[in-house]
């Protein structure tokens, strides 16, 4: 590892950040604004806007010390990484995040467009089909009457003319419906495009996972050499679709399970 290349990074900025955090952690040295609350105050009063030039100063004490600890940890990690040459691979991983974000919004846009395109086509085609159905049914019942000898010659002539007209419009409507079906088919092209993009994101995530895992193994606190349990961290109720239900007992995978659960609770 070339130390020079590594040192040419943002260490000045990091040093400045670190210093500001350390200063914030030592209120005696920093000029104390009038509104800054002393330590034992349980709830920090909302400071007037003029009294908050330093965000860390307006925080409550536990938050401030947590902030400082994170800052110190960051510094330690940064130094350690530099020694090990890991910062380059992590830098690469971090640089991949905005890229992944862009790719994902691309996927979101494409899928939305495809859904709209499909729904538009359905909106156009459905009335055409409804007309074919309604007209066919009306004519069929007229023809039933003819076969039951309930129509006069004049009525039969009218029926024949209307039927001829109907066949022509039906052909036209069928053609129009077909072109909408084609449109629906074409709208599915998003699958190909998004599929490729998603594949790339998966590869990128794998790489990122690899370097982060390596990093975790190297720097996890002494005695805990095992990786963090995955999937047990998020206890929130806003998780979105379950994209992988393998081995999970805390989720349902179909409507029957929802119904069973509700029934078991007496709902």
């Amino acid at each position, binding site marked *: 590892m070339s130390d020079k290349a590594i040192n040419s990074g943002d260490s000045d900025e990091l040093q400045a950040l670190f210093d500001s955090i350390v200063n914030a952690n030592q209120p005696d040295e920093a000029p104390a604004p009038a509104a800054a609350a002393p330590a034992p105050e349980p709830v920090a009063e909302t400071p007037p806007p003029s009294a908050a030039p330093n965000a860390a100063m307006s925080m409550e004490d536990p938050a401030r010390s947590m902030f400082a600890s994170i800052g110190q940890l960051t510094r330690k990690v940064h130094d350690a990484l530099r020694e090990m040459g890991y910062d380059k691979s992590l830098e690469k991983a971090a640089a991949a995040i905005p890229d992944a974000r862009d790719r994902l919004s691309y996927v979101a846009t494409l899928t939305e467009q495809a859904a709209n395109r499909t729904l538009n086509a359905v909106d156009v085609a459905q009335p055409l089909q409804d007309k074919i159905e309604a007209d066919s049914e009306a004519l069929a019942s007229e023809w039933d009457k003819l076969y039951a000898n309930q129509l006069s010659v004049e009525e039969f002539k009218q029926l024949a003319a209307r039927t001829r007209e109907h066949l022509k419009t039906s052909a036209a409507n069928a053609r129009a419906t077909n072109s909408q079906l084609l449109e629906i088919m074409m709208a599915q092209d998003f699958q190909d495009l998004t599929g490729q993009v998603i594949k790339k994101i998966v590869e990128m995530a794998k790489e990122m996972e690899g370097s982060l895992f390596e990093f975790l193994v190297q720097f996890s606190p002494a005695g805990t050499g095992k990786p963090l349990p995955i999937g047990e961290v998020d206890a929130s109720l806003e998780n*979105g679709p379950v994209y992988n239900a393998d081995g999970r007992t805390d*989720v349902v995978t179909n409507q029957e399970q929802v119904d069973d659960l509700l029934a078991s609770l007496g709902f």
Partner: protein
Amino acid sequence: MTDKNIRFLVVDDFSTMRRIVRNLLKELGFSNVEEAEDGQVALHKLKSTTFDFVVSDWNMPNMTGIELLKAVRADPTLKHLPFLMITAEAKKENIVEAAQAGASGYIVKPFTAATLDEKLGKIFQTLNK
């Protein structure tokens, strides 16, 4: 027989999903449908116009579906409204939370027209008792 003119409010932050739910409701004969893109807009609409039925997503910006449900149940003029959740949130915790907050039904996405029909039927049956 269910009155096909009852007024639905479909709440989802994705316009495509609102459209799909609206189309499905239309397919089932309910064409009196309004839309809202989050819980906040929905609550405003519920308070300013009369609705007979709420179909809501869970995960939305500003105000989530569960917050909307709780707000509806806490409001004396709205608390009687049938409230059907249609959501991708599939944790058991979510379902229990929704049931306890007073949801009339819970459908997980992706769902079918048949499921929607069945749940609506069940809710109407309960209402008419």
